[in-house]
């Protein structure tokens, strides 16, 4: 069963085509990889899915419903959330507050409830606090509760950003280069983490990555982009064997190495 479907999606900036006629289908509960050289349009696709950009042409379907005209917060309400390539935490809030803020979605009390501290407020707020605490522990951030997010080590900032995204109880999680700047050891732990949260939270993961090991190791299906267009699609083996991919992507890296 598919959870996300891109149909003929095109995004133009002025005359420049950042993404052209891309279509792919993400199966529910899978880990799906999006790779390609710099400037291939990967992040642009994330921005289109999350409603930060509006598509020029084409359709994006989530659970069969069109979402390309929704505002980013509405996309989040549908059950899609993401992390950013250049980490975007609430830097001056603590680790706990970062997660607690994102939990807001699971409470429904009004401003008036909070002003008079109604019963509804107290019950729901307690629920949020518990949920945030639980997430902190699951993500191994429990001992950094009161650390200001901006002061966390880099690896933990990435982890916190994922934790914050999970607070929404999403159905689809988009990870934009989660292993950027990590050493091989950290990358392996991140792979384990992604697999674990997938099964634990019962969600689908769409990941952009440059670390080939990570992509090849965890993704059931991969789409390769180049110059905004889909170059290849398939399993890790399919993609690795595809001559077009080797030429455009892996080949390029070989040249750099020489």
């Amino acid at each position: 069963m598919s959870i996300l479907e891109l149909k003929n999606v095109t995004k133009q900036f002025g005359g420049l085509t950042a993404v052209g006629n891309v279509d792919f289908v993400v199966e529910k509960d899978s880990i799906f990889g999006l790779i390609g050289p710099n400037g291939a349009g990967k992040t642009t696709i994330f921005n289109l899915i999350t409603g930060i950009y509006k598509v020029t042409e084409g359709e994006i379907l989530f659970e069969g419903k069109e979402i390309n005209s929704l505002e980013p917060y509405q996309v989040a309400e549908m059950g899609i959330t993401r992390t950013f390539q250049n980490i975007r935490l609430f830097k001056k809030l603590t680790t706990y507050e970062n997660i607690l803020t994102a939990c807001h979605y699971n409470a429904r009390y009004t401003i008036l409830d909070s002003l008079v501290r109604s019963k509804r407020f107290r019950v729901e707020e307690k629920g949020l606090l518990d949920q945030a605490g639980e997430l902190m522990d699951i993500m191994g951030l429990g001992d950094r509760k009161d650390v200001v997010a901006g002061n966390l080590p880099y690896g933990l900032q990435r982890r916190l950003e994922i934790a914050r995204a999970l607070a929404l109880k999403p159905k689809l999680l988009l990870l934009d280069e989660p292993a950027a700047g990590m050493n091989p050891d950290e990358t392996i732990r991140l792979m384990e983490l992604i697999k674990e949260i997938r099964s634990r939270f019962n969600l689908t993961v769409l990941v952009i990555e440059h670390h080939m090991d990570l992509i090849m190791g965890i993704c059931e299906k991969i789409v390769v982009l180049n110059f905004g267009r889909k170059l290849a699609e398939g399993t890790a083996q399919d993609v690795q064997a595809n001559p077009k991919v080797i030429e455009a992507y892996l080949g390029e890296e070989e040249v750099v190495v020489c």
Partner: protein
Amino acid sequence: MDWFYIKGILILSGINLMAVLGLSLLTGFTGLFSFGHAGFMAIGAYVTAMMTIKFHLPFIPSLLIGAMGAALASLFIGRLTLNLKGDYFCIATLGFGEAIRLILDNVQYFGGARGWPGIPMYTNLTNVVILDIIGIAILVNLIRSRHGRNMKAIREEEMASQTIGINVFRYKMIALAISAAFAGVAGGMLGHYLGFLQPKMFQLIKSTELTIIVIFGGLGSISGSVIGALVLTSLPELLRTFAKWRLVVYGVAVVFIMITRPQGLMGGYEITAGNIKKLISRLASFGRPRQQTIGGDKE
């Protein structure tokens, strides 16, 4: 210095505090910068005075109507500018503040530029203190809820806020409307304290002074705003000779705070029972820190 004089300063501080609390929510907690709060104060002041004088309503209901007037005006500005990227909101509030003053200058019904005398002096220290306490309670309860947290998130990182499902535009509007309502109440209290209103009282410099107080107290700190309002309103009153240089010093101080200590006096911290306890225990252990850690190690 007699009690009457001190009382006057306290009342003025309390009135300023009300406006500062509102601005604190907008600038300190939501990260929006307004040049138009003097305009919202003016609307509150004139609407409240109209309610008590022309419609003979009691003071408190009149204040509430004044607050609503200010909030409605703010929603109008917000509707037009808060969903645009860039400094549109800033410039629109700047223009708005000036426009309100120009309009009031020409409305003869309210006395025009010459002013509007004979406003009943309902404001006294008791109701100022009570209203301020209610104002602080509202703000504290709002900040310590999911709604307040959403506003802080917007201040920190707008795009991430959206992707965790926060309707940024809506929360900015809410923060703006509440903020303007506070300014409106402050305006209403001011008119009924002085017994006189004049458009000149609500010049651009009034808006900037309110912002300075918020910055001085520390962006994102309610206790900082309270201390800031009390100190910065009374200090120049007490040091009359200093008056001429006051704004010069303010200007330098604002730049200095921004480039050295942008967190202001309180640095985003609050004075709460818990924080005071923590501070005291830290101070108490200050004399013998080494001993304690050694003891801890042995265990």
